[in-house]
């Protein structure tokens, strides 16, 4: 009953939070308590329906090959029919579960975290819209619908990253997020247009048939280009190199927003897009190679940067980029299962990490530098414990969630290419190192005497607790229950644990921990010395390899420069011609003006002469026409 209802009303999942957004922004902006309750109620109902959908997928045997689809026409004209609809398959069901659960938890957390903010009600409205857009994107049946909600997700991220809009940095961060993703969207849009024109449809189901047929007939060259254009969207949205720059700045938003962006909405949208369109990508080995290598590089690159960052949320942001690289890598090596599995576990422990960071920032009044924290373990024991769980999970220590998903990725990578496997393993080592660094520096070490941190309230600890439980079990349980039988592409994927790789990766993670303990276990002094020795490498990493500076230079000099040149052209050439024409006619007028003296008698004389001449002409011509002229 409930299961049937959920499946057939899956469109309610995004609609409920969207309605919450509308109702709050039209009626409840002045009643914050009501607003937050409404948002949580809507999200909670959405979560329940998502659970029902999940159950329906399992009980009704809905598979990737035979998804449950409902469609309606959004607009249509000859040659272009755009649909909206609901596509439920195990991948979408898993995403619905993860997104709605994390959104719900983050909303509950926000009731505590955002207390006292003047825009409290508005915050819940935006968060609801954010979740709604993401949920609607997840159930998209075609590329256009996906793109529509993809953009709306971008809009919400802009609004929420720039939440503290009185701060210039927040304002610019929001702008940067929107702009960077826009650049990717340009490619995505081009790819979508090409698909529409070449195949006359954007429907995932139809494309999954037509594209492989086209490729096997006409070769992969053209479609590889299209796939790479499509991939530009995920590159920007999921923070892959070189369009990752917005993600670290996105921490300017309130921490619940960061948690939502990094864990459940926004960034995983890119990964999800590739997974959703996997039928296209998987037949194009060229595109797959690019995805795999770019993912691997991003993972390594971001991990290198995370080593030296000092702000807690910034470290977490780079770790997100790195983990997203993992997910892309998994997709690139053809393992959709591993990617989605990691997406899910990562969502749980990354949300937990961010909520924990938020709890710390809340206690320390937005002091973000980990080296100014110290000793938080005593004043915030619950937060400390849960952060510890999350750190173990992200580092891939068994039996925490991250271990299983990361292991699947490593196995998949090792099957395809050894360099990719090595890169991924090294990233795992770095991940363990910098997460341990964060944990050791912030929670251990000496207490900062000026701070009086306090443990957060229940509204914040409860969601963290739920996430902590999930961070522990969300790896082993799905693994045991055959996650790969449902969430897959192609034949069912029964991954057993490859003990060799598993033990290697565990050892690598432990090595990372030990190194961090060696350096940071006894205060920060040793790390400064190492930083000095590293020299250029250290400053490269600290300054994020100067990618931001490069973009800023490009924007300031090339784009704005070109704009100035064109404005000059407009004022002086285009307008110059116009004004020149006007001036020329003016000059002619100035000459003619001299004939207009204003002397009445001159005019009279001219009139006289003209009359006489006219009379003469008439007289002579009348004579010439021989009496013909009757005047």
């Amino acid at each position, binding site marked *: 009953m409930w299961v049937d209802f959920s499946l057939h009303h899956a469109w309610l999942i995004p609609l409920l939070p969207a309605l919450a957004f509308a109702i709050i922004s039209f009626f409840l902006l002045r009643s914050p308590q009501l607003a937050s309750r409404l948002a949580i109620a809507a999200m909670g109902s959405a979560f329940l329906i998502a659970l029902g959908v999940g159950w329906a997928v399992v009980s009704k045997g809905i598979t990737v090959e035979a998804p449950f689809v409902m469609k309606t026409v959004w607009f249509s004209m000859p040659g272009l029919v755009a649909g909206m609809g609901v596509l439920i398959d195990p991948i979408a069901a898993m995403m619905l579960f993860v997104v709605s659960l994390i959104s719900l938890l983050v909303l509950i957390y926000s009731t505590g975290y955002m207390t006292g903010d003047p825009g409290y009600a508005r915050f819940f409205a935006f968060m609801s819209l954010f979740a709604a857009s993401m949920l609607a994107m997840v159930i998209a049946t075609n590329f256009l619908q996906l793109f529509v909600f993809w953009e709306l997700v971008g809009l919400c991220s802009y609004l929420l990253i720039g939440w503290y809009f009185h701060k210039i940095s927040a304002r610019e961060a929001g702008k940067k997020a929107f702009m960077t993703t826009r650049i990717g969207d340009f490619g995505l849009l081009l790819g979508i247009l090409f698909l529409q024109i070449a195949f006359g449809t954007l429907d995932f189901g139809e494309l999954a048939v037509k594209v492989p047929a086209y490729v096997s007939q006409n070769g992969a060259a053209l479609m590889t280009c299209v796939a790479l254009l499509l991939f530009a969207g995920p590159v920007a949205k999921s923070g892959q190199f070189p369009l990752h720059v917005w993600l670290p700045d996105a921490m300017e938003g309130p921490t619940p927003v960061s948690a939502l962006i990094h864990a459940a909405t926004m960034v995983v949208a890119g990964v999800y897009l590739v997974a959703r369109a996997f039928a296209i990508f998987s037949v194009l080995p060229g595109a797959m190679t690019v995805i795999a290598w770019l993912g691997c590089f991003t993972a390594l690159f971001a991990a290198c940067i995370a080593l030296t960052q000092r702000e807690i949320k910034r470290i977490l942001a780079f770790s997100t980029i790195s983990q997203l690289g993992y997910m892309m890598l998994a997709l690139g090596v053809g393992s959709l299962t591993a990617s989605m599995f990691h997406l899910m576990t990562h969502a749980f422990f990354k949300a937990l990490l961010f909520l924990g960071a938020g709890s710390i920032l809340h206690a320390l009044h937005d002091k973000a530098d980990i080296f100014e924290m110290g000793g938080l373990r005593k004043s915030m024991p619950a937060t400390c414990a849960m952060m510890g769980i999350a750190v173990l999970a992200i580092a891939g220590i068994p039996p925490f969630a991250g271990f299983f998903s990361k292991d699947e990725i490593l196995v998949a990578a090792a099957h395809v290419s050894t360099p990719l496997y090595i890169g991924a393993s090294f990233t795992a080592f770095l991940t363990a190192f910098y997460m341990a660094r964060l944990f050791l520096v912030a929670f251990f070490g000496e207490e900062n005497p000026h701070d009086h941190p306090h443990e957060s309230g229940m509204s914040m600890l409860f969601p963290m607790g739920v996430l902590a439980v999930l961070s522990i079990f969300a790896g082993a349980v799905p693994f045991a229950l055959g996650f790969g039988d449902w969430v897959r592409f192609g034949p069912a994927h029964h991954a057993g644990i490859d003990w060799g790789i598993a033990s290697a990766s565990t050892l690598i993670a432990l090595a990372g921990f030990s190194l961090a303990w060696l350096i940071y276990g006894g205060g920060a002094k040793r790390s400064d010395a190492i930083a000095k020795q590293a020299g250029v490498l250290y400053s490269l990493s600290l300054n994020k390899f100067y990618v931001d500076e490069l973009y800023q230079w490009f924007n300031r000099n090339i784009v704005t420069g070109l704009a100035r040149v064109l404005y000059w052209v407009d004022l002086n050439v285009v307008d110059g011609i116009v004004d020149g024409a006007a001036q020329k006619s003016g000059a002619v007028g100035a000459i003619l003006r001299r004939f*207009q003296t204003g002397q*009445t008698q001159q005019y009279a004389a001219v009139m*006289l002469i003209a009359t006489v001449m006219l009379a003469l002409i008439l007289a002579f011509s009348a004579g010439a026409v021989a009496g013909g002229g009757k005047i």
Partner: protein
Amino acid sequence: MIGLSHYLLVGAVLFGLGLFGLLTKRNLIAVLMSIELMLNSVNINLVAFSRYTATDAAAGQVFSLFIIAVAAAEVAVGLALAYAIYRGRDTVSIDDMNWLKW
């Protein structure tokens, strides 16, 4: 015997005098008077032609009556303008009246 040509000659002389005055006089009043002269010379021509050549003797004379009426109106307006300009600008010299020129 005085014929048509004599009247026309008088008319032409009057018209010439008027034209000369119109083109050379600096005083606005004098210019208006010159215009009156020219109009009257036309009247003489009309009456003369009507007397000597037309079959319907009244036609030309009705014309000249019209012209007299129009001339009276014109002088009234013209003098009023001259007076207004004199009050405002303290001049009746037609050379100075070029303010409408751009």
